[in-house]
């Protein structure tokens, strides 16, 4: 059936292609359109030509040209990414960014061969479409704790370091240009300074691309990466400043002063804009509980709007985006569903990955395409000065910073920070934006920038990994966050705040604590929906961990197989309470009642024993009742182990119910509370069969032990059968007053009949030898 359809369609295709066969062969033009027009024209001319058949298949490329080409590029980028990971050896030596640039070069070369002009990385496309996903991804997943702890250092590097770099490189280049022998006399100071400011900024895209692969320790990662994000403000200000000055022609001191003010406005303004949009997004997410599907959309659109709004006012768009992502994240994550969270994560990673790939490919293509003007001295001088400036800047700044840091930066750290100062596409795009009329040497700048970018990405990018290994720099620890660490982190925070209060001065912890309390009291109530607003961080962490383990449990096949994350080797029964069992809050029995119970039991048991003896004296050597007892005990033990396992899972999988559910939970707990059963069980003792407990199987007794703690364990519901026996012997223990005899009570027969414990003065004969 399908085959017939296919052949039919094929036939029609061939049939319709015949009249088109005579059409012109150029693929880029709208042949179909022309044909139609020609046909109409012919018809109007009086049907000179024969009527053409209805074009079943026509070629119309111009319509879809733009989306088609974009998709082709994106597809190419993704296929390249795929390809690199299929060649693990290559990707372990050469970082991905280098490979992508090479691919770009090849593609650019190919396009040039065909005779067309290869597309250049348009600054608009770069700044509005390619850069935001990467920055949003970085900002949303920014590790806030480390970032704020090192904020002073990062700011020093970003602001002071970039300024130093800019003026050093610009100034020295101007000096070189003034030298004789070079044809660079036309380069004035302002242009050099502009060039210096553009090229001195460390690029977040390149840094991310390279540092992600080398898994360096978190401190260094956040230092270099934070610097690359925050220096955007400096770059923007310097760029606009020098651009304006070049137009104006003269500089005055007021202009310099205004420049500083402008810097503050640009950076703080960007942050404020980002924060406003972040709060809006958090507020919106409070109400999305019924429309979970579009939750991720709000996040993306609000962030993008933050970026664009900042760009409108020439504020730092990157800082706005970072601020937006960082501000909205804690509130949004508390509000959105788990699936939305996964969606956001994956979309951000996907987009930033594609952007990143495209940027590098386009860099390669632009190199082939762009108008170049090669000047040996200028380019080499630029390169040398950039490197020297970076090294000097890092060393000088670290010297100052180390006076204020507790964890000082070692020389190894300094080397990595200096070496990790990669330049990238932002510098290229900024130079590309320059107006050739005002900057006649723009092409030379472009060439120089591309050379520096290539050098840093290729040479530094490739060699940083072996250098990191060689210098034995600390790598990122892949440990999971354990709940003990979380508890102690919180504990430490409160402890240090308390000590600061006792010391009397308002330090770092005091203000952090104040901010947290303000956040909890006012902000969370507004921005987080429902009950979650009151949830303290420790509980949120615990829930997240339980959820993760529950998911792992399900994914690993369920059943009694516990996921590796869980300490399946130890179960609650192994954690014994230090206090002896007699402190258990079990109902008190009066002495008289106790005696009575014991008497009844004893007589019952003796009677049973006599019965046994009378049955077995002559026929069997082994006591069949005892044999049967063993089987029953083994079965019971197996059952208990199974229940144990189930209860272990319950222990971990039980997410404590939110207050709304607590009445039912409380009811459930009450139902299983051994204390509630206590009294009832006492009256039932005389009629209970003996076989439930045996000295040979202490485990079963032990299990009982654990679940009859203080009446607070909700999961002991399965063990209540055994609990009935427990009551009298606990009395026994209390009577004996031996707090250290912990292992012994376990072995006590749950029956009130005195066991083998020698200290018991009511000892008759042991029930079972």
């Amino acid at each position, binding site marked *: 059936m399908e085959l017939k359809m296919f052949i039919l369609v094929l036939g029609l295709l061939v049939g319709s292609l015949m009249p088109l066969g005579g059409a012109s062969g150029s693929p880029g033009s709208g042949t179909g359109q022309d044909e139609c027009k020609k046909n109409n024209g012919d018809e109007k001319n009086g049907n000179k030509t024969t009527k053409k058949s209805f074009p079943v298949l026509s070629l119309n490329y111009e319509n879809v040209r733009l989306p088609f080409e974009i998709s082709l590029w994106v597809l190419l980028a993704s296929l390249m990414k795929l390809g690199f990971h299929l060649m693990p050896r290559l990707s372990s030596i050469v970082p991905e960014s280098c490979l992508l640039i090479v691919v770009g070069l090849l593609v650019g070369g190919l396009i040039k061969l065909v005779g067309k002009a290869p597309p250049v990385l348009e600054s608009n496309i770069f700044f509005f479409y390619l850069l935001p996903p990467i920055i949003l991804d970085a900002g949303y997943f920014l590790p806030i704790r480390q970032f704020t702890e090192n904020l002073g250092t990062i700011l020093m590097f970003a602001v002071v370091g970039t300024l130093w770099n800019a003026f050093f490189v610009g100034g020295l280049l101007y000096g070189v240009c003034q030298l004789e022998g070079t044809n660079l006399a036309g380069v004035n100071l302002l242009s050099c300074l502009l060039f210096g400011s553009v090229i001195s900024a460390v690029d977040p895209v390149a840094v991310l691309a390279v540092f992600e692969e080398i898994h360096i320790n978190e401190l260094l990662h956040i230092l270099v990466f934070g610097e690359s994000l925050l220096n955007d403000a400096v770059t923007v200000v310097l760029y606009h400043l020098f651009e304006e000055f070049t137009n104006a022609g003269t500089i005055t001191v007021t202009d310099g002063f205004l420049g500083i003010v402008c810097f503050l406005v640009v950076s703080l303004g960007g942050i404020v804009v980002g924060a406003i949009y972040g709060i809006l997004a958090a507020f919106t997410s409070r109400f999305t509980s019924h429309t979970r599907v579009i939750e991720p959309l709000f996040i993306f659109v609000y962030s993008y709007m933050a970026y664009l709004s900042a760009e409108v006012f020439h504020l730092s768009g990157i800082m706005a985006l970072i601020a937006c992502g960082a501000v909205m994240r804690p509130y949004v994550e508390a509000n959105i569903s788990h699936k939305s969270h996964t969606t956001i994560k994956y979309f951000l990673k996907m987009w930033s990955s594609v952007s990143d790939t495209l940027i590098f490919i386009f860099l390669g293509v632009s190199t082939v395409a762009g108008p170049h003007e090669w000047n040996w001295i200028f380019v080499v001088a630029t390169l040398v000065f950039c490197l020297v400036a970076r090294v000097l800047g890092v060393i000088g700044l670290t010297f100052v910073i180390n006076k204020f840091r507790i964890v000082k930066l070692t020389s190894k750290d300094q080397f990595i920070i200096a070496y990790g100062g990669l330049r990238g596409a932002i510098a290229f795009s900024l130079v590309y934006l320059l107006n050739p009329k005002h900057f006649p040497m723009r092409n030379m700048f472009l060439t120089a920038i591309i050379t520096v970018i290539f050098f840093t990405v290729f040479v530094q990018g490739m060699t940083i990994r072996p250098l990191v290994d060689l210098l034995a720099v600390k790598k990122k620890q892949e440990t999971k966050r354990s709940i003990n660490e979380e508890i102690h982190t*919180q504990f430490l925070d409160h402890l240090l705040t308390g000590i600061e209060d*006792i010391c009397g001065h308002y330090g770092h912890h005091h203000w952090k604590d104040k901010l947290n309390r303000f956040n909890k009291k006012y902000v969370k109530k507004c921005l987080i929906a429902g009950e979650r607003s009151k949830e303290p961080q420790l509980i949120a962490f615990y829930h997240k961990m339980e959820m993760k383990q529950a998911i792992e449990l399900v994914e690993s096949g369920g059943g009694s197989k516990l996921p590796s994350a869980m300490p399946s080797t130890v179960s609650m029964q192994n954690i014994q309470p230090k206090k002896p069992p007699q402190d258990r809050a079990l109902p008190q029995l009066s002495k008289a009642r106790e005696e009575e119970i014991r008497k009844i039991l004893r007589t019952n048991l003796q009677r049973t024993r006599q019965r046994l003896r009378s049955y077995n004296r002559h026929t069997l050597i082994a006591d069949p009742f005892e044999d049967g007892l063993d089987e029953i005990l083994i079965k019971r033990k197996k059952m208990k182990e199974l229940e144990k396992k189930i209860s272990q899972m319950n222990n971990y999988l039980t997410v404590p119910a939110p207050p709304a559910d607590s009445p039912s939970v409380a009811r459930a707990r009450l139902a299983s509370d051994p204390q509630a059963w206590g009294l009832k069980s006492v009256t039932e003792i005389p009629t209970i069969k003996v076989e439930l407990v045996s000295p040979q199987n202490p485990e079963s007794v032990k299990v009982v032990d654990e679940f009859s703690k203080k009446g607070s364990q909700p999961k002991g519901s399965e063990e209540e059968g055994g609990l009935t026996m427990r009551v009298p012997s606990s009395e026994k223990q209390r009577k004996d007053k031996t707090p250290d005899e912990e292992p012994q009570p376990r072995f006590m027969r749950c029956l009130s009949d005195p066991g083998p414990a020698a200290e018991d003065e009511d000892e008759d004969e042991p029930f079972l030898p």
Partner: protein
Amino acid sequence: MGSFQSLPDDHQYRTLSLKTGFSLEQIAILHNRFKQLSQNEETLRRDDLKTIQDLESNPIRYQIIEAFFDRRNFQKDGVGSVEEIGFEEFLTVMSYFRAPAHHITEEQREEIRRAKLRFLFNMHDTDNDGTITLEEYRHVVEELLSRSGALGRETAKGIADAAMLEVASISVGPMAPDEFYEGITFEHFLKILKGIEIETRMHIRFLNMDTAVFCKQHSV
């Protein structure tokens, strides 16, 4: 007091400085604070610390105050707690929160780590038996969550249980059903908190210059 110090105080400060590692200026400032808290008496009592306003909102304030009166923190083999402390004990407890110096050897760093973690351990181990039992740990978590009402109490048990399980499985590994994990010993405590760099995280900045002093000088 100001910057003028009488000779006997100076000598006392020097011995304290040698013992605890604080600089003379820091000791002077802390002494001022001590006098302020104890209302110019020689010894400090628990009630004096309880009067600090900012401490009210701290969920673990009782443990913190207790730590100042715990003999175990004064010297190596002290036991029990005292009712009032002098300036030397105050300073000794404070010295646990000094930042480690930059150029120290690995052994010194390890020693500082152990001392700080010992302080934390003593805060948890309230009955001084050398182990943190499940009950004690539960108490710690409950105090941390004490501001969350009923929800906190219910979850605290679950969290403490999970934490104990984790410690047991990390320190002891697989356990047979009839083995028992008594409680967290100090060695296990060291092990589980290896991930947190205690020696750099557990510190506060002690002032080197008392700004109040300058004001007093000017007013005089």
